[in-house]
């Protein structure tokens, strides 16, 4: 008796009780659906984080003043100032593997064009910053080192700022913009970068030479860097090594005793990324538990229904045995029935999971990613549940005594 024959008989038996079969398979459907949704969410979040990595620049370290106990605001100027301009120079010149380093001083200020005004981040930095962040211009050019040397009143605008001040398709290069009521000339517009992992809009910023920032925007604290320092290492392999070297250099320069805590922080982007993934992990864990419980309950449901089915069909089993079915034929019949139930449930679950993943991806704004191997694994797993929980009822059916089965009312 062929396998195909067995499958045909099983599917027919299931289709005689469509509603019951569906309800029985529901546990598997939900379980597999949860697995699929879970993986899609995990993959989507991962892709999003990787994308964010790429947009933040490669091999990036961010240095902030203040100990980790007095956590400074990222890129802000509120924390205790401990990093000096001399520190920055030392990092640039003394640490091997440092490709570039740029200061990043930031405040919130109003910027005004001819018609509009907009409150945004105004940041003082050096031309290296654009390179560190791999952030090219969509029009115009970045300010130069000589702009920094002379303290020129020039500005590079993020795309969001351009949209707000000049309109969506405008190119304001060459025009004037007022920052804190001082006239600046727009020299460049940066390409759109999108959102940071924390949902902050990278393009909502105006960048000016750090010397101009210090002279015109900031007041006091001139020996200290009232912000952070972006450092790029020569390669991603060198990032951790660079982090160690920068730390050693700064501890030495700040005369910290071995037991003293750092009076600065170095953020490696992997940390930020892992914090970001933490959020999706909760959701993933929840879905994984739903999946596990559903598959277990689904399996028990299948076992239950198969036991009922064996009892209901005792006479049928007797007839089949009388006309020549061997115990293994009966075993195969009920096993394949349980298997078909769970695998069909698995297919429905994959459909449901993909649907859910699609909705979630749309909601969170990340790419819809699905791995074919996960679908196969999920289907394989549902099959395993079917065989695992179908084995006992099928075995019972195959051990029935033909005479008693035939006599069963």
């Amino acid at each position: 008796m062929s396998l195909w024959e067995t499958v045909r008989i099983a599917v027919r038996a299931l289709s005689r009780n469509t509603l019951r079969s569906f309800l029985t398979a529901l546990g598997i459907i939900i379980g597999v659906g949860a697995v699929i949704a879970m993986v899609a969410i995990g993959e989507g979040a991962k892709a999003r984080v990787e994308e964010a990595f790429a947009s933040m620049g490669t091999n990036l370290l961010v240095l902030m003043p203040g100990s980790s106990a007095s956590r400074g605001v990222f890129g802000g100027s509120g924390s205790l100032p401990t990093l000096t301009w001399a520190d920055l120079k030392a990092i640039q010149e003394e640490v091997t593997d440092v490709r570039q380093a740029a200061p990043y001083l930031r405040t919130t200020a109003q910027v005004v064009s001819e018609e509009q005004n907009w409150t945004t981040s105004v940041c003082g930095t050096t031309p290296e910053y654009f390179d560190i962040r791999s952030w090219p211009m969509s029009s115009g050019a970045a300010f130069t080192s000589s702009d920094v040397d002379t303290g020129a009143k020039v500005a590079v605008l993020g795309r969001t700022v351009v949209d707000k001040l000049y309109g969506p398709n405008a190119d304001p290069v060459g025009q004037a913009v007022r920052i804190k009521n001082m006239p600046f000339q727009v020299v460049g517009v940066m390409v759109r970068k999108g959102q940071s992992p924390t949902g902050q809009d990278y393009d909502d910023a105006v960048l000016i030479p750090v010397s101009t920032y210090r002279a015109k925007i900031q007041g006091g604290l001139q020996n200290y860097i009232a912000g952070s320092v972006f450092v790029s290492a020569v390669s991603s392999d060198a990032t951790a090594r660079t982090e160690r070297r920068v730390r050693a250099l700064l501890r030495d320069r700040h005369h910290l005793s071995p037991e003293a805590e750092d009076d600065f922080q170095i953020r490696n982007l992997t940390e930020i990324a892992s914090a970001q993934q933490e959020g999706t992990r909760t959701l993933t864990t929840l879905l994984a538990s739903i999946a596990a419980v559903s598959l277990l309950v689904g399996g028990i449901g299948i076992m239950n229904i198969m036991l009922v089915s064996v009892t209901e069909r005792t006479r049928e089993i007797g007839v089949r045995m009388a006309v020549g079915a061997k115990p293994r034929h009966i075993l195969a019949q009920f096993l394949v029935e349980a298997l078909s139930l769970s695998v069909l449930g698995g297919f429905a679950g994959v459909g449901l999971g993909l649907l859910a993943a699609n909705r979630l991806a749309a909601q969170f704004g990340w790419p819809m990613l699905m791995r074919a191997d996960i679908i196969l694994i999920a289907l394989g797993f549902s099959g395993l549940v079917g065989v695992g929980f179908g084995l006992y009822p099928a075995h019972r059916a195959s051990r029935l005594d033909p005479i008693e089965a035939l006599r069963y009312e």
Partner: protein
Amino acid sequence: MEPLIVLDRVTRIYRMGDVEVRALDDVSLSVEVGGFVAIMGASGSGKSTLMNLIGCLDRPTSGRYLLEGQEVSRLGRDALAEIRNRMLGFVFQSFNLLTRTSAVENVELPLIYAGVPAAERRRRAAEALRRVGLDGRLDHHPSQLSGGQQQRVAIARALVTQPRVILADEPTGNLDSRTSVEVMALLTDLNAAGLTVVLVTHEPDIAACAGRVVRMQDGRIHSDERRAAAAVGAAAPREARP
């Protein structure tokens, strides 16, 4: 000629706790190829037990059973299933057709387990149904057939594997007298075509179709008479039963 069925001092004891029921007690019986045997006897005398043994659905507690010269009383479940499939055909009192399954598919059932390919299966099942006079009813389900028609489907199912023996335990027990006559005519025809038939009945006029009547009493063979078989329906007409 070598007998087809040889029971040699067969005993079948049912044990229920401490109680022992001797359903068959030292029974010896042989049936030749082409024989037509009716087994009669009071309720509980062991007729069905005997049929189950002959049908390889059960094994004797002691004694030997030779089917076509082969000792089958000690075979395992798989081997017995194969013998049932190849050599025996069953007809039950309660038809035992699969519900919600068409006549032709019911008849195909033994061929599935014989490993016959689908197309040939269908052809042979249709042929068997034609032989029992149901060629117009291939796709009818049991619930769409009369009792007599259902029993004829069951007979077709018993024949389809071309077995050596048809075993019928009270095949007319659920039928009225007119359809009983039809079913008996069919069995008589099959016997005339060379098939060995063993049937259990309570009805003397059904037993009259057989060339040999074995009477059971308390698990033993009480009498075993051979005579010329009467024509079907030739016995005194009875009142139609409900």
